[in-house]
């Protein structure tokens, strides 16, 4: 494989971008109202795991991280009294998702820093590879 470090860092970029996508989906739906007869909007959680055992990176075989699935949060949500809402039931209750904005913001920051870190790796690797192209010139 040519320039394997790029592929490894790109796999990390993919994981963190997926995570940011999930967080933005969660935040966009933080006030999504559902009738009590339906499930609440469920928070999205990205599940990631390492590619291979860790030995691959030494030999230049494909390595890095990948998204292995998405798991969903609590469908129960929380019941809120909002009698004027057209979706409210006979008791005036509606269902809101159980998503904490503070938690989502923290996740967003972690995902963003992780993304930036992988970009830094690509930048540094590019310098090293470019230097390698000058051998014998």
């Amino acid at each position, binding site marked *: 494989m040519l320039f394997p470090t790029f592929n490894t860092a790109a796999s990390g970029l993919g994981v963190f971008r997926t995570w940011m996508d999930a967080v933005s989906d969660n935040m966009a739906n933080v006030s999504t109202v559902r009738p009590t007869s339906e499930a609440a909007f469920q928070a999205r959680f990205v599940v990631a795991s390492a590619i291979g055992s860790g030995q691959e*990176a030494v030999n230049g075989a494909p390595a890095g991280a990948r998204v292995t699935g998405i798991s969903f949060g609590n469908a129960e949500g929380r019941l809120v009294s909002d009698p004027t809402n057209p979706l409210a039931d006979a008791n005036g209750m509606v269902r809101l998702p159980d998503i904490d904005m503070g938690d989502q913001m923290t996740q967003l920051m972690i995902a963003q820093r992780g993304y930036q*870190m992988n970009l830094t*790796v690509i930048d540094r690797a590019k310098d090293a590879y470019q230097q390698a192209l000058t051998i014998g010139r």
Partner: protein
Amino acid sequence: MIDSTGSAIYAALNGLAARQRVIANNVANVETPGYIAGRVSFEDSLREAIRNGNASGTSVSTLRSPDPVNLNGNNVSIDNEVVGLTKTDLAYQLMISALNSKFGLLRTAIGSRG
């Protein structure tokens, strides 16, 4: 490769490239639950190989980082990785300069004006 100096530089470049790949893997897995960071070692083996007069016998090995593990089973320390990445890249560029100087000497010896 050419002579013992060339072989030593070439072995060092190999080891450094492997270390760079392992660091990239550690960074990609900085938040992966249960991931244990990898560490590359080749310097001791290279030193031994040079002492024995055959640098191409250098072996590159990876170890699992002994650093303490987080709650999610991960032990990648991002600051360690950045420092390691910077050192590795600078050492890599230094080795390339050394290799180019070596080629420069050869070019002089051959008598080419290019």
